[in-house]
């Protein structure tokens, strides 16, 4: 009896940890059979480029969720970053990009302070920033869509090296950095410890407030980067639409990738898998003429199933 139960538990845990990769493999095989030109370089490139903003935002989200938090403000931070970019392109691309990053860091610092120092619940603190941030982005840009003509930004948006778009390269570098941060540094271990049991982490004299602050700042920075890349790809700054509802896609990618909402675990590569999986599901359904509405309902089912699986495995 017990061995059977144990085996079942192991199976559940395996599914939780590696289910996202298995699902990806299955989906790729299905696509090889039913979707024409699936392996064409063009198609793969399109899929990769489309997933970049969600993926980058999801990296920060994974860190935040690892601390048992959540960051709803990411979409609005993207919009603020997009709104700031064209204003300072006159000084050159790099000063403008730096200012965008600074804005993202400040937004993260604000939500981090509310969460870590004041003790506001993450969902409320970042909700306030979601509402206020989008408004701020619209105030900064006067609600206008602005075309971008700066050659550096435009190159960032559609240039490539050896067939790999710059935006994808940026995403790959960021994934590697975040994976190293979580897996190989003291900071990463402290982060996971805080998410697992904040009281215990406090008693163990971990710098809880500082770690939380840094985590939210990183999430803000990553969102700002996503905002810059999204703007570059669009060749226009669109603060009213850019990043809308991206927080939900990012949370989905993180959770489907095996990071539990209850914190204490961060799976960076799993998050990449989660983002790719959701992107591929949507793309597969759309390429095979399944309406967007159905693909949305399928996404809903997958989110719920993934979490149900996690619940089961945790028991």
């Amino acid at each position, binding site marked *: 009896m017990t061995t059977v139960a144990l085996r079942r538990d192991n199976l559940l845990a395996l599914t939780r940890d590696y289910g996202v990769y298995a699902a990806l493999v299955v989906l790729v095989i299905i696509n090889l059979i039913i979707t024409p030109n699936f392996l064409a370089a063009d198609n793969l490139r399109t899929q990769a480029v489309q997933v970049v903003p969600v993926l980058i935002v999801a990296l920060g989200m994974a860190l935040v969720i690892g601390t048992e938090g959540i960051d709803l403000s990411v979409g609005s931070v993207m919009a603020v970053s997009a709104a700031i970019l064209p204003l300072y392109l006159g000084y050159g691309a790099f000063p403008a990009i730096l200012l965008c990053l600074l804005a993202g860091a400040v937004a993260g610092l604000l939500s981090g302070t509310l969460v870590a120092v004041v003790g506001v619940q993450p969902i409320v*603190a970042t909700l306030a920033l*979601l509402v206020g*941030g989008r408004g*701020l982005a619209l105030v900064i840009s006067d609600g206008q869509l602005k075309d971008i003509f700066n050659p550096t930004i435009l190159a960032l948006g559609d240039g490539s090296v050896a067939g790999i778009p710059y935006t994808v390269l940026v995403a790959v570098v960021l994934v590697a950095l975040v994976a190293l941060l979580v897996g190989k540094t003291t900071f990463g271990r402290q982060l996971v410890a805080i998410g697992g049991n904040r009281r215990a982490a406090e008693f163990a004299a971990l710098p809880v407030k500082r770690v939380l602050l840094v985590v939210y700042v990183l999430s803000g920075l990553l969102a700002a980067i996503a905002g810059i890349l999204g703007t570059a790809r669009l060749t226009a700054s669109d603060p009213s639409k850019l990043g809308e509802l991206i927080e939900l896609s990012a949370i989905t990618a993180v959770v489907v990738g095996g990071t539990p*909402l209850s914190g204490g675990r961060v799976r960076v590569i799993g998050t990449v898998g989660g983002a790719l999986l959701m992107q591929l599901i949507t793309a597969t359904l759309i390429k095979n003429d399944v309406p967007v509405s159905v693909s*949305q309902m399928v996404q809903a089912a997958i989110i719920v199933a993934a979490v149900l699986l996690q619940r089961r495995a945790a028991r």
Partner: protein
Amino acid sequence: MTMTESFVDTSAATGARPSRGATLAALAQRHGALVVLVILLVAGGIAFDTFLTFYNLGNLAVQASFLAVVTLGMTLVIVSGGIDLSVGSVYALAGVLAAYASQWGLVPALLLPLAVSAVIGLAQGVLIGRFGMAPFIVTLGGLLFARGLLQFITDEGASTYLMPGDSPVRWLGSGKVLGIGVPVLIVVLLFLVGGFVLQRTRYGMRLFALGGNEDSSALMGIPVVRTKVLTYVLSGLGAGLAGILAAAQLGSGVTVVGVGLELNAIAAVVIGGTVLTGGRGGVTGTLAGVALLYVIQDLINQSGSVNANMQQVVSGGVLIVVVVVQTVLSRVRRGQSR
């Protein structure tokens, strides 16, 4: 920590009165939104001639009534310690269903959307209550599902269903009784019932217990699963009814409405003094929170010189101030006495 806890215990045992600071803190937390609302109303009345008129406030009340209906259910959910992100999508879905069913008359136009909303709430409640899943994720799924279903029945948003101009449903949205909009009257009625249910019924008591400490309430024999399921059904029904009223006012089911409505609803509930961790709150504060959001918006519109986009910035700012003050106040309450 131990010091304060033992202090709380003795004060409770000896029946000592809570300190004045703590009482004030509790009062401010409960009625803060109302106080700010009154101040803004007075200030607005002094600053703008067209603000404190029956016409303007009546319009404002009708606009606010849809969000108010949504927040009633959201208050119950949040008091129970949960959250419902699906309300915006359910709101839009119910509006479209009401417009679609209005061709068959008043009763189908009400029953079809309400039934669908209740079923969505039921499914979410079962997943949350019975299977112990996180409300955030389940209702996030609900958000996507309901929006998907909505797109599906409207041919990907291409078809818009209109309500016949003579349909009795439309009276629910745009009718007036004694000069007051019907949606406003419905809100008043619902909040009276909601307040009674929350404060005076067994279900309401259970909700507070559940939000306060789920494990203890389970040990006390409170039917946790049933209470949770009922709560999400009620939230679904609230969102559905709000969608029906909004569609009735517009005369059609618009597919793009309700995006982000859940966030406004949560903001209003939190501003109204209901704590997101559950176990504490009330419907009066929620109503004040909704009114506050709309009064701020109207004041910004009235002033004209301020950029209309500032409204979101101000709302976000107000939310931050309110939650910071609430957090500090509840620390004062916990720290000194209870």
